[in-house]
């Protein structure tokens, strides 16, 4: 490029090509990074099934907490005040699974010591809220079903799916 040419043109051919080259490289890197970021989130999240059959209401004696579905479904079935409800075994502090201690009549979280009563209400330790409940219902054959995909925080415990009346179940059966 001659001196004169450079004087008359703010951007010479080389400047354009250089800018184009670097833009292409930067663009490719950016696109690659963005694509990788998106790749880390699946199109269809893999989620395990959420509904299971939990036997007959009569399997749960009044005033008891059953932990027979904790290993498989992370759910405690509680029969109290002629209601059956399913407490989600997921501590509202940071998500560990509390255990049921029959003698002390409470749920206790092994991670940082939160305690919950039979209704799942927190009364000690760092947990900020009561344990959530999973949806429960009786099918036409009178069997108890639980759906851990639908959850009820304390404000919603009055809603129909948050518990089943056990006396009503007896009548149907």
């Amino acid at each position, binding site marked *: 490029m001659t001196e004169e040419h450079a004087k008359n043109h703010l951007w010479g051919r080389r400047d354009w090509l250089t800018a184009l080259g670097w833009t292409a490289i930067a663009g490719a890197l950016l696109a690659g990074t963005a694509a990788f970021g998106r790749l880390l*989130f699946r199109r269809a999240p893999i*989620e395990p099934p959420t509904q299971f059959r939990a036997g007959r209401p009569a399997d749960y004696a009044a005033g008891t907490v059953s932990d027979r579905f904790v290993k498989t479904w992370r759910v405690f079935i509680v029969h109290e005040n002629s209601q059956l409800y399913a407490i989600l075994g997921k501590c509202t502090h*940071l*998500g*560990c699974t509390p255990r049921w201690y029959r003698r002390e009549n409470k749920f206790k979280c092994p*991670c940082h010591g939160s305690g919950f009563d039979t209704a799942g209400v927190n009364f000690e330790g760092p947990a900020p809220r009561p344990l959530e409940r999973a949806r429960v219902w009786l099918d036409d054959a009178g069997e108890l079903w639980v759906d851990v995909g639908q959850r009820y925080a304390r404000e919603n415990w009055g809603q129909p799916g948050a518990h089943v009346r056990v006396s009503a179940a007896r009548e149907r059966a």
Partner: protein
Amino acid sequence: MSARPGFWRQVYDSVFRHKFGDTPRNRMLQITSNVFLHLHPATVRRHGLRLRYTWGMGGLSFLMFLVTVVTGVVLMFYYRPTAATAYIDMKNLQHEIPFGMFQRNMHRWGAHAMVILVWLHMLRVFLSGSYKPPREFNWGVGVVLLTLTMLLSFTGYLLPWDQLARWAITVGTNMAAATPFLGHQGPGAQLTGVTERTDVRALLLGGPQVGDAALLRFYVLHCVFLPLIASTFMIVHFWRVRKDGGISGPPATDSDAAAGRSGGQS
């Protein structure tokens, strides 16, 4: 082998480009002409050798990194990162593989030591004021290295797939869900619009809870991604130590100035 008389001489000269007589020039050449040694400065100031000044902490941190790299690669020969195999592989490493227990414990102790030494190194740099100009940039590089060390430790924690590992990562990733703007339970989540499926916790776990996807993700981060990034930053860190004038020294005193000396701070 009675080759041509000059043969072995030629082999020798092809490897070493300098003589070995103990002269200052040859000593410098040994450093500058060797790829494995060239990170060392050809000359070191006296104060840079004082253990009471550096505590040797940066070098020991690096040594621990090398220990975890070597033993970690050894563990990779037997460890499979799936929920069905991870725990049993760890147990087999300990009880069935010759020296497996030794390698695993070297890796674990090396990792713990690295975390501790990196913190002590930072403390030393702070106490000796070595973050001051012209070394501010290298302090910044060091902060990144500290973060990477913690991330290496965190991702390695899940791999044994025992109860401690799974619940610790459950707790840790639930804490990540409370990160401002990036976690769905954190402040500002409405602003950024992140949900349970798109926040930083989901990014780490690759699924709704700690499971196979999370184990694989942590494994790749732990064994490939983070060590590569950390190595890159270490290269910059060491290079910068040299470019900033070698290890820092005590600041110039009034008597230094009177005597026309520059002091150590460069």
